[in-house]
């Protein structure tokens, strides 16, 4: 039987993984709110940000904190660019076309990463100033993981403050609720889109720098493909367009994955080792059948 220590360790791991998922899913659900399509390319921004942090640290010898800001900035610019170059020209096309654009963005970002890494797979890890780990009720947490754990709620609070307390935030919510009515009261759609893309991309950028620097994290241009898919699962799970839903679902999926990997694997014969990545999808499939509108989605 698994011990209490294993359980605590799994909980901690779950919250760490869940933090990464939540930051990506939050951006994804915001973009969905205003653009009305799933942006398949979004997760790859996280991967690019991780690589930018890596190169800034390893090649340019920039300190980690500065590298994080630079990576986030570049990711933000890339996100805004993707809106102007790709999504804006087809804004009024059928949703299916926008979907293909999003898939195009996915391939484009992955190609950029392959160029950046020149096809080499081993680049080492991102240099971080705080090494070592802490002990917590029998569980081990590295300092980088702790940073991610603590920063995520702060970032979420910041996003909520922005969305619910500022005028720009209100206009984002207005466009998400009813684009036509928002246009009628004089909200400029372009401005809202740019701000949303910038905010969502910045979240993915911060997440990339933070998650990428966790000791033992393997960076590769394809590292985000499963993450993107899981972020979608989380967004659907929480209800499309719902921010609270995305946050809660992000942590739930993270916890489920680590708990099932650490505790029940080996006890259920069918779901063996190779299925660790599949739990999120199994949960979603069961969930959409029982409650098609998501945790917090309106029908």
């Amino acid at each position, binding site marked *: 039987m698994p011990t209490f220590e294993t359980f605590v360790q799994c909980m901690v791991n779950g919250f760490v993984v869940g933090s990464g998922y939540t930051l990506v899913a939050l951006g994804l659900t915001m973009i969905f709110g205003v653009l009305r399509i799933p942006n398949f390319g979004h997760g790859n921004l996280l991967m690019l940000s991780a690589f930018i942090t890596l190169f800034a640290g390893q090649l340019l010898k920039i300190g980690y904190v500065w590298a994080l800001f630079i990576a986030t900035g570049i990711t933000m610019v890339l996100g805004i660019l993707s809106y102007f170059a790709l999504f804006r020209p087809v804004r009024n096309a059928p949703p*299916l076309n926008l*979907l293909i654009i999003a898939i195009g963005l996915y*391939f484009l970002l*992955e190609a950029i990463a392959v160029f950046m890494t020149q096809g080499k797979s081993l680049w080492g890890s991102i240099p971080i100033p705080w090494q070592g780990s802490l002990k917590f009720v029998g569980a081990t947490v590295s300092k980088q993981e702790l940073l991610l754990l603590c920063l995520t709620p702060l970032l979420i609070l910041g996003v909520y403050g922005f969305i619910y307390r500022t005028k720009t935030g209100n206009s984002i919510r207005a466009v998400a609720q009813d684009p036509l009515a928002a246009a009628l009261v004089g909200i400029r759609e372009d401005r809202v889109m740019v701000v949303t893309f910038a905010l969502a991309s910045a979240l993915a950028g911060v997440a990339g720098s933070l998650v990428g620097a966790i000791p033992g994290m393997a960076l590769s241009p394809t590292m985000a493909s499963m993450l993107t898919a899981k972020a979608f699962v989380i967004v659907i799970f929480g209800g*499309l367009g719902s921010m609270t839903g995305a946050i809660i679902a992000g942590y739930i999926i993270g916890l489920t994955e680590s708990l099932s990997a650490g505790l029940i694997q080996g006890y259920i014969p069918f779901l063996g080792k*190779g299925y660790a990545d599949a739990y999120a*999808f199994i949960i979603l499939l069961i969930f959409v059948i029982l409650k098609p509108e998501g945790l917090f989605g309106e029908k």
Partner: protein
Amino acid sequence: MEKNKENPPSRLSGLRKKTPPLLILLVALGLPYLLGDEYYIHVAVKIAIWCIAVLGLGILAGFTGQISVAQASFLGIGAYASSLLVLKAGFPFWACVFSAGIISAMVGILIGYPFLRLRGHYFAISTLAFCILMAHIFSNWVFLTAGPPGVTMGPGQVSGIPGASLPIPFVGEFLFDTKTSYYYLVLFFLLLAIYVMDRLLRSTAGRAFVAMREDEDLSRAVGIDPTRYKLFAFFLSAFFAGVSGSLYAHYVHFLSADSFNFLESFFILMAVIIGGKDSILGLILGAIFINLLPEFLSFPAAATMISALSMAILAVILVVIIIFLPGGLVDIGKLFRSKKHG
């Protein structure tokens, strides 16, 4: 040419309408002799097999408007089902292709029933989840699929049952054992698929599909049962993919779980949209385009850079087509015409 347009429809104009498809058919029939080279014929076979899966998704995503990202899974189910039917149950080729289609379609019904209650993107993401789950099953259910190393079914070494090998399809005394003959075999299935689809789209069901895509609530109001017709579309789409997968398994003699992941589904969906989702010709154009593009994009550079560069160019070309030809490649004639006039 311009003058003829104003003439009343006559037998001649009917003939003119039929000319382009007939021409394409002629080219398709003579293709192995036009290409000559073994490798090009191989590409042609692959495209023809792929076309069937794209046509299938065309029914579901193009005409019915249900965006599915699971087509690669049904391709995989068809492929693995036929390898099992042949290797473990000793099915002959023709029965195997049909059964693979049916098995795939049955799975389609099974997941289609709960999924089709979901609307729009909920449906799309759920099919994505299904596709990823299937990819996990393909690579982990070693008993059925031999796992990541893949199933080898070539004459000679066979995983699973030693000594057994996938039979080469035949009609009477004739064996489809060369690339050219296999091309004609696949072409036969493709033409059959096109014929079935053409008849279907002119039928009540076909009109119901389009009606649901245009306005689901309105079509419900005029007596179309959306669940039934969507399920039918899903069934057909999975059936086509299953047949395509079976033909693929019989052709390549090697199945790897990686061939059926969600990126493959993305490519099939792209073929549908890039070609033009409103016509059979468009779907076929899309399938050819998506497959030929990487063939043209092989650059003399380092191995991984080739894939990165071609991936980037592919993405850019896709985006440009979507921006300038929202209706797909079939509209390319319209683009030139509108430029001429204004």
